């Protein structure tokens, strides 16, 4: 075990999969000599050469579409979108094409494709370098949507994504790239080649009083908030790190709220139609009888982006203190 950062875990995941399977290649903007603008692919160009680490033209639609074509031909592309904010030009290819290939050909053609993109706010990136885009894709059957929040999960889920025969969107909470550190088995240790299965949530913290559902950076903040309210208020919060948004681990979502009777969903995306809506709807239907209070959502406000100025950005972003306040409020209901 070594403590490594989130981004280092992602880099290792790619490295190991490229070493394992010659069909795995990387493409995206600046992934080559530059090693990616966040350095997620650093060293891979030097190690695997220009045939397998390819600087794409500046055109996300075709980064994804070329990935789709290569996946149809049974290669294993990993496409990097430089910021999740720039995935939108590829929306048509992801939603109309990648997601539907298997279904529309009744299983004849599959698209084993990974699309990686750093997402999320709190990084002084303004409207176009802070976006959370997961809600759009979590609505699209045929896709898988994965968001790791720890280095261990990041590496294990990324390896699962590469081996998955379906298109997987892998969104990385970029604010945590270097801030989040955690234990990851060494590659040459017996557990080195572990994977984390797609489709399973993780109980990040057990608790009896209320359930908090979160992912990415908000999973961390929710854990911190849980510690605050445990210490200061004696409230015992269970934190569920969803890890996979699609397909959703419904059993885990329902099990927790059935135990605690209260649910708070935390996400940094805009409130309305953010992913928390689905969690709330699921619970309000299937765990209605267990509920001891309203289902609450704490999310970004409904404005068209995370603003740049730090005062505005602070105001926009949920943080451990606003989450703790929401926990107290719901616990007191």
């Amino acid at each position, binding site marked *: 075990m070594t403590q490594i950062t989130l981004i280092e875990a992602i880099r290792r995941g790619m490295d190991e999969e490229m070493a394992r399977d010659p069909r795995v290649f990387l493409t995206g903007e600046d992934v080559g000599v530059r090693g990616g603008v966040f350095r997620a692919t650093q060293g891979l160009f030097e190690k695997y050469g220009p045939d397998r680490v390819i600087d794409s033209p500046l055109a996300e639609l075709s980064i994804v579409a070329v990935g789709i074509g290569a996946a149809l031909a049974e290669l294993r592309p990993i496409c990097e979108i430089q910021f999740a904010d720039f995935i939108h030009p590829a929306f048509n290819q992801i939603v109309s094409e990648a997601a539907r290939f298997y279904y529309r050909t009744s299983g*004849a053609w599959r698209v084993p494709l990974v699309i990686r993109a750093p997402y999320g706010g709190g990084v002084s990136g303004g409207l176009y370098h802070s976006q959370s885009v997961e809600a759009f894709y979590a609505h699209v059957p045929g896709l898988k949507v994965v968001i790791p929040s720890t280095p261990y999960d990041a590496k294990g889920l990324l390896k699962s994504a590469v081996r998955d025969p379906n298109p997987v969107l892998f969104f990385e909470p970029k604010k945590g790239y270097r801030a989040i550190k955690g234990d990851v088995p060494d590659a040459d240790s017996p557990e080195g080649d572990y994977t984390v299965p797609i489709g399973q949530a993780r109980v990040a913290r057990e608790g009896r009083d209320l359930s908090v559902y979160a992912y990415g950076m908000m999973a961390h903040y929710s854990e911190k908030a849980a510690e605050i309210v445990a210490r200061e208020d004696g409230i015992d919060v269970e934190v569920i790190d969803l890890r996979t948004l699609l397909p959703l681990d419904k059993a885990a979502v329902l099990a927790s709220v059935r135990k605690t009777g209260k649910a708070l969903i935390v996400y940094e995306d805009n409130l309305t139609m953010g992913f928390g809506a689905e969690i709330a709807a699921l619970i309000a239907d299937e765990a209605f009888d267990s509920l001891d209070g309203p289902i609450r959502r704490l999310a970004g406000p409904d404005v068209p982006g995370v603003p740049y100025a730090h005062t505005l950005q602070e105001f926009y972003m949920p943080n451990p203190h606003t989450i703790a306040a929401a926990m107290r409020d719901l616990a007191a209901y």
Partner: protein
Amino acid sequence: MTTDALVRASSRLGEQTLLSIYWTMLLSRRLDERAWALHRQGKIHFHISAMGQEAAQVGAAFAIQRGVDYVNPYYRDLALSIAIGITPFDIMMSLFAKQGEYSSGGRQMPAHFNSRRLNLVGGSSVVATQVPQTAGLAFAIKYRQKTGLADPADATQPRVALTCLGEGSTSQGEWHEGMNWAGVHRLPMICLVQNNAYAISVPVDSQMAVANVADRAAGYGIPGVVVDGNDVLAVYDAVREAVERAYAGEGATLIEAKTYRLTPHSSDDDDRSYRTREEVELWKGRDPIPRFRQYLQAEGILSPEQAEAYERRARVEVDSAQAAAEAAPDPSPEEALGAVYAPAEGGS
């Protein structure tokens, strides 16, 4: 260029192949006509036609390694798909949307030609999306060759990826991005634009400010070729040259086949608001099928009796395909739920 290459590639086609080309065009046409009739009779919901464009499609298909090289077609590629190996029964099953229909199990509208076995990629209805995907297929070909996963000389493996679309669809950004990858990475890719002068009702001069789609190839650093799309051997020659360039590692080609659709856009369309009857008649006079028949007859390759026999055989094939498809059951409702996600490898 060797002396050989100066000889038209089509001049090396044997009589059997020429007849096979003719047969494919004819079969597609008769099937296509039947589909229109079925629609008029209210037996099917929808049909979209290749009529008038058979030469462009069949000429192209015969120039590749059919069933091996990748083909990413568009909704109009009935004749091309037949040439690749899709059968009249397959098509009829699609038209009637019957259980187990070959392309999608009845999920897609007709004309979404598909066969994993034949490396014919089952597309969407969304125009131009297949172009950058074809760049991806071509990329994979080159990737395997460069990384030693495939032998460039192995003709049992795909060595070129061909895609088709209409001239109107080249207005999409998707097309630009696909062509650009093809150029930058010198991909073994062929983009065949079937320019039939209209995108539904929109004439080509509302679509682009250039005389030829092929003029755009220069912007991608690849050759652009204009060919008479109603001359099947001319199309064959143009595509064959592109195929040879691709096989030789010389990169992509854009080919524009000038042609015309003889029917409305689809069975939902009425073309009288946007095309004069005179124009349509003019192009009926240029129908690629009689034109090729006359050529074959003039060359003594096809006798009038043989031509008649082909017609009879086409009718029988279409009849029996229709009968078999009509007799087939509908999909059972719950089939709507299957095959959303591919199972894990090695898994179930």
